[in-house]
């Protein structure tokens, strides 16, 4: 049986799917990583005065989000893009667990 046309991934379609995945990863993964990072730094930064830790954590989180978004598009492959976000996310998660 012949493969229907719409199932044959043209280069352009492959590109689009790839971009879509990366965009989704950047939007949700980037924000998720930033949220995790914000929590970890806010709870873990060694400030006597917690509002300082919160403020600094928020600033760091925005930079994290920026880097994550850029990484999502810069990584050579989708897999690397995912890994690049997943590993720091796991580390932040671990840090949060240890802080509990």
């Amino acid at each position, binding site marked *: 049986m012949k493969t229907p046309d719409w199932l044959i991934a043209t*280069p*352009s379609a*492959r*590109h689009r*799917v*790839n*971009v879509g995945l*990366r965009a989704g990863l950047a939007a949700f993964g980037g924000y998720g990583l*930033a*949220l*995790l990072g*914000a*929590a*970890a*730094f*806010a*709870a873990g930064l060694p*400030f006597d*005065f*917690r*509002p*300082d*830790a*919160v*403020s*600094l*954590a*928020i*600033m760091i*989180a*925005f930079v994290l*989000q*920026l880097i994550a*978004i*850029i990484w999502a*598009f*810069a990584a*050579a492959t989708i897999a690397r893009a995912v890994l690049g976000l997943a590993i720091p996310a796991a580390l932040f998660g671990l840090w*949060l667990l240890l802080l509990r």
Partner: protein
Amino acid sequence: MMTFDRARPLRQSMNWLHTWSGLLLGWLLFAIFVTGTLSYFRNEITFWMQPELHRAQTAPPERIAFVRALALLAREAPDAQQWTLTLPNPRNPTLGLGWQSSMTGNRQASSDATREQDAGGAQPSNPAAESRPFSGETTRGRPDRGEARGENGARQEGRRRERGADGAQLPNPATESRSFSGETARGRPNRGEARGESGARPPRAERQPEAGPQRSGAGAQRQGQGGGGHRGPRLALDPESGEKLEGRATAGGNFLYRFHFELYGIDRIWARWIVGIATMLMFVALVSGVVVHRRIFKDFFTFRPGKGKRSWLDAHNASSVLSLPFHLIITFSGLVLFGNMLMPTALQAAYRGDSEARFGEMRARMTPSSGMPEPSGERAPLTTGLAALIAEAQDIWGGGERVGSITITHPGDRNAVIELRQMGFPSLTGGRNVPVLRFNGVTGEPLAAPAAREQSVVQAVGSVLNLLHRGFFATPVPRWLLFLSGVGGSLMIASGLVMWTVSRARKAPEPARAPWGHRLVEVLNIAAVAGLMVAIAVHFWANRLIPADLPMRADGEIHAFFIAWAVMLVHAALRRPKAAWVEQLACAGVLTGLLPLVNAATGGLALPGSIERGLGLLAGFDLCALISGAGMLYAAYKVHRHTPRARLAASPSREEPGSGPETEADTLLPGTMEEAA
């Protein structure tokens, strides 16, 4: 062509990211940038929009009619907990009076915190005002949030919160802006509820009581210079005669200010999220643009305008690179201002949701130094020697420092306290620690000044970001620099948007049948760039053409803005792109350029008069209108004269008028593709 499923150089990825992150919400970003840039002068804009106040004669402290002013306060607000007099200053020549009633029935803050807050206005020596930096946070998701607009109680509450944020200088998102009305400019009779306030406004004095319970935040003086928005009842007097000046109800510059981070007509929390997302996209576009534009540092130091062809690319690069530090800081600080809202996990993790602990900590560190006496309950007449106290304060400070505002706490009580605040901010990192002197309100004897607030490094960073974003500076020069950088940022976004269509028009095989996406971008570009300029000009026209005593006129000004903008969108969709650009730019240019005439013809102080009187704020508005009007007309002319080469659909904009004719953008960022290949 670069595809993401194959190996490709970093700069190509970043080029793609730059293009699309910039385009996605670029139109919104342009509007945010333009209205935000104008907000640096929102006091001046609001003053312009109240021609009734234009002829106030500024006066030196010794000639100010303090006796009449105090008598007026005693009549209008005999039971107020605090009175504030804002002396004439470069940003407002009138004498501003404000007051707050007592703090009974405050349902949110503990009364001591509130009282402290009140004591300080936005001026910061007042610790408790700083002590609630996160207070705004708690409003998110509050059930009454939705009512915040158009309802006094909620609004007032927002106001108080906002104040907390102001003082705090910690990034504070939710607060920064809860109240549309909070930013009321001085001297507005109606406190300028730009949104939704119902019709006939009763005189302030009668309205206040109903707003009472929540009015703890009223009376804040937003900017040390005294020109800031003022929350709470507010009167403007002619300084020397003490005559009350009745300014018209106006949306004022506050509408533009609010719009730049809360948009209009949608829930403000949603609006802030949208603006926050747009800001993050801007951040991504900026940084990816820097990666792509590899000679950035070379350009930064060797940029020579007028050399070589100014293509769209050059225009875009020039406007970007020249004020890149500004763009980065304004974007990042914009995010940080919304930080508690956008990154809620930070607070949750640090306090495990215990908001009381948070306030307690802030208060413990910052409150102890207030030292404001409690009212004694015994009546005693207030000293009449305010002018003498001012002279004394200026002697103590020396160096030509002037008093910016006078706060009288517990007026009429034996324990009344008079605080004199210096005009302006002493330093960037010092935030709002404006020098303050305290005197006994009855005897005029000096009292111990409140201790300066200590600030940690992180808070200092936060306050620098806050100050830079919001232009809290004593002198006009940094504010003008910020303004010009904002103009540069607006041009950057506009030229970037236009470049998207220009570069694609060249590639499209058949422009007559442009893909709908291309057409969409083109129409939105015209309406968002030129159309917004028309809408802003119409907003100012409406300010003068809507009768001054018409009910709801402030809303009328806002509606005029949006109606004009919508008409421009329809116009852009119906006309051919080039015609639409020319017509809208010309329309905006004429409307803006005529504003000084409208000002003169409708009761305002005309340009020659304002220059002669040294009223920089009025002259500045009129001159800016003339210059930008001329600039837009010139841009319209250049677009009109421009004959598109080949099949290039013309869509130049006003920002680099000279660049219209020779558009050479084959790729968004030439060099990228070739080098990558």
